[in-house]
């Protein structure tokens, strides 16, 4: 059943990325060489202008001056700059970040960046303490949910001036559109996303499907929600320790708009303004009723059954299909022993599919003393090569289309990894609660949704109560939505 030690070591080796340091060095060198040249250009032009105005033996003087200038450009010492950047990577991803920083430091002798890895749950407390004391690092990691708060509180410097001068880097077509949304304010891009991935994927356990003789999702046709129900019922077998569930992944508030309600022609918050709730409308109620029926039919594990250990029953091989995001592969892959794959989510009642997409970004803070050098790092981080090295080659979906091919080549992604890209290309939308009061909205609504599965409230009651609870909070977003220029 399990892997032998040799297979385990083999698995480890192949999971290492394809892109190594040498390649990255090459690309970074070219990129930074171009930057240095670009920075040097103005000097030579100025000196030439001055020389051309004097009337002496022109050519000789030009030659001497040009040589001097070239020597000056080479020998001009800059003061060494130390940069700090806070990250929040899980421990097994941290060595990769350190490698990138080492290469960057080699390529840029006058810039020395030190990364600091902070545990996820403590990131915001630490960052707010640093912000309050005015000792923020030069660059910070930022999740979509915090971005607007950071920007509105003037904690992040706008990257737009640098981007305007760098059309080669800021080729807008190369960036996955939903990735940029949360990090913009009034037409300016403040933070640069490094990843953006869909949340509405179905991971399915091939062994369970084969044993039950059920066709894989989306394999022979555009499978629908009814197909999901039928498959789940067929796949749910056994009792007690042998129990297999057909489906896991009930709706939760943060993705309910894009993943669940959209194909029922309903929505909870009016994206992107987040100022009104439409949860009380009939379509939303019908949608929740459908999901409650699915849950009550026994194909999904109850929260108690699912909560055996931190993790997910899908990883123990007792669930046939699970609704997950692209990053869920990171814990599925090392834990699930059975063959598995990823598929598109089912088509909804309106004949279409939908998915939310989410990601995180990095930005330069207001406390930096060297914004230009911080920009050099931020730029290097988000070039195609940077994103390949740091993210797509280890199975994290990047925010640049040009970095995606590496995502398919690595073993860290499921076999049908191109499904993920198709979702991003065809129907993924950002559709998340990223307004300043977004967390308050989801914190108010989630307990009410919990009570649906506990069967303490009917779907109608849940929907109307969510609207009642969230409407006053959403009203607070009106000012922000107007300033941001969102139209709903």
């Amino acid at each position, binding site marked *: 059943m399990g892997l032998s030690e040799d297979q385990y070591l083999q698995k480890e080796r192949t999971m290492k990325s394809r892109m190594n340091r040498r390649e990255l060095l090459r690309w970074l060198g070219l990129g930074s060489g171009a930057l240095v040249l670009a920075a040097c250009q103005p000097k030579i032009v100025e000196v030439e202008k001055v020389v051309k105005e004097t009337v002496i033996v022109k050519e000789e003087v030009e030659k001497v001056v040009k040589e001097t200038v070239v020597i000056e450009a080479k020998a001009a010492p800059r003061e060494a700059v130390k940069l700090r950047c806070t990250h929040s990577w899980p421990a097994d991803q941290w060595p990769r970040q350190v490698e990138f920083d080492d290469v960057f430091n080699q390529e840029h002798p006058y810039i020395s960046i030190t990364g600091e890895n902070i545990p996820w749950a403590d990131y915001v407390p630490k960052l707010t303490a640093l*912000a309050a004391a005015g000792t923020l690092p030069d660059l910070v990691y930022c999740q979509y949910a915090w971005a607007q708060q950071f920007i509105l509180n003037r904690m992040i410097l706008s990257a737009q001036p640098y981007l305007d001068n760098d059309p080669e880097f800021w080729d807008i077509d190369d960036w996955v559109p939903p990735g940029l949304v949360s990090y913009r304010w009034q037409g300016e891009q403040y933070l640069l996303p490094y990843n953006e991935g869909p949340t509405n994927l179905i991971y399915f356990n091939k062994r369970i499907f084969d044993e039950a003789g059920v066709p894989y999702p989306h394999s022979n046709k555009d499978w629908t929600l009814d197909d999901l129900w039928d498959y789940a019922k067929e796949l749910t077998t056994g009792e007690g320790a042998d129990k297999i569930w057909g489906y896991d992944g009930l709706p939760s508030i943060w993705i309910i708009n894009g993943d669940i309600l959209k194909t029922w022609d309903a929505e909870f918050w009016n994206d992107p303004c987040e100022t009104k709730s439409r949860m009380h409308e009939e379509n939303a109620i019908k949608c929740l009723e459908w999901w409650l029926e699915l849950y009550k039919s026994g194909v999904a594990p109850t929260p108690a059954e699912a909560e055996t250990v931190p993790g997910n029953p899908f990883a123990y091989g007792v669930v046939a299909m699970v609704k997950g995001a692209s990053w869920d592969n990171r814990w599925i892959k090392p834990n699930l022993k059975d063959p598995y794959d990823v598929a598109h989510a089912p088509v909804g009642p309106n004949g279409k599919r939908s998915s939310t997409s989410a990601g995180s970004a990095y930005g330069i803070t207001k406390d930096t003393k060297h914004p230009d050098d911080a920009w050099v790092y931020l730029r290097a981080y988000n070039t195609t090569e940077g994103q390949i090295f740091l993210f797509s080659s280890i199975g994290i979906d990047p925010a640049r289309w040009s970095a995606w091919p590496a995502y398919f080549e690595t073993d860290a992604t499921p076999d049908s990894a191109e499904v993920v890209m198709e979702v991003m290309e065809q129907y993924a939308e950002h559709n998340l609660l990223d307004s300043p009061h977004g967390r308050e909205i989801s914190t108010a609504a989630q*307990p009410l949704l919990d009570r649906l599965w506990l069967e303490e409230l009917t779907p109608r009651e849940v929907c109307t109560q969510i609207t009642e609870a969230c409407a006053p909070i959403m009203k607070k977003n009106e000012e922000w939505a107007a300033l941001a220029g969102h139209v709903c």
Partner: protein
Amino acid sequence: MERTAKLATRTRRRRLGATARREERELYLFIGPWLIGLVLFYAGPIVASASMSLTEWPMLSSPRWVGFANYAEILGSDALFGKVLFNTVYYVVFSVPLGIILALVIAILLNQKVRWLPLFRTIYYIPSLVTGVSVAVVWSWLLNPQFGLVNHFLGLIGIKGPNWLFDTKTAMPAMIIMSLWAVGGSMVIYLAGLQGIPQHLYEAAEIDGAGSWARFRNVTLPMMTPTIFFNLIMGIIGSFQTFTQFFIMTNGGPANATLTYVLYLYRVAFEFFRMGYACGLAWMLFLVILVMTLMQFWGARYWVYYEAPAARR
């Protein structure tokens, strides 16, 4: 010799004056370090948090004065304030007394003449050392409705075990049971207290013909009251501020059934970025704890026995 004699006569003559002043000087010398530390390291932040409660402070930028608006919102329009306070009081009312009793019982058991005592004591102390993920995992199992040990034992005596952490009515009782696990800490304090009971009192009691229960009731318990009082006060102060185990285990769920006060406070501060409001909540909690503690101190003179009560001037 001469000096002490002089001292003795001096103090006898001017007992109220110089001695008292000297003692007061010594008092301040001894508590000096703590007092200096208080002024240096705590006074400023405490005053700051009080003044922050009168502002809206996202921490990422400067505070904005709002006067008592935060307090008005807490008492008036905060839908969760009542619930959170209720949850916390519910938790305190059950976990503190149960914890005290259980820790005392275990400490007495571990003070008997049984073999392998150090091993047992270490084992009982383990859960209060183990933090984080391990606690969450093990308790998820123990309380699992299907195969958890707790429901297994309840089934043996014919009770159908409830859904514990997944039912709004039993989630808090589950957390209370979980808190009893960490009695190792209080147990250590009781053990230290039991060491302090003079043997001659037990001997005297036996000579008077007292059986073990009578010895316990008339010697052990009264002599332990200072320690019990300590654990009571610390228990009240600590469990009103309980945060970590709720954050890890349930994060306030299901449906806010286990949302405790400080967990809510933490959310307001670091998820909604409203530190001013959080400071207001903190000071309200301070008042509640202060009142409860004062009540305990007032009641203490009826049941706490000190050999040497801190005499009043």
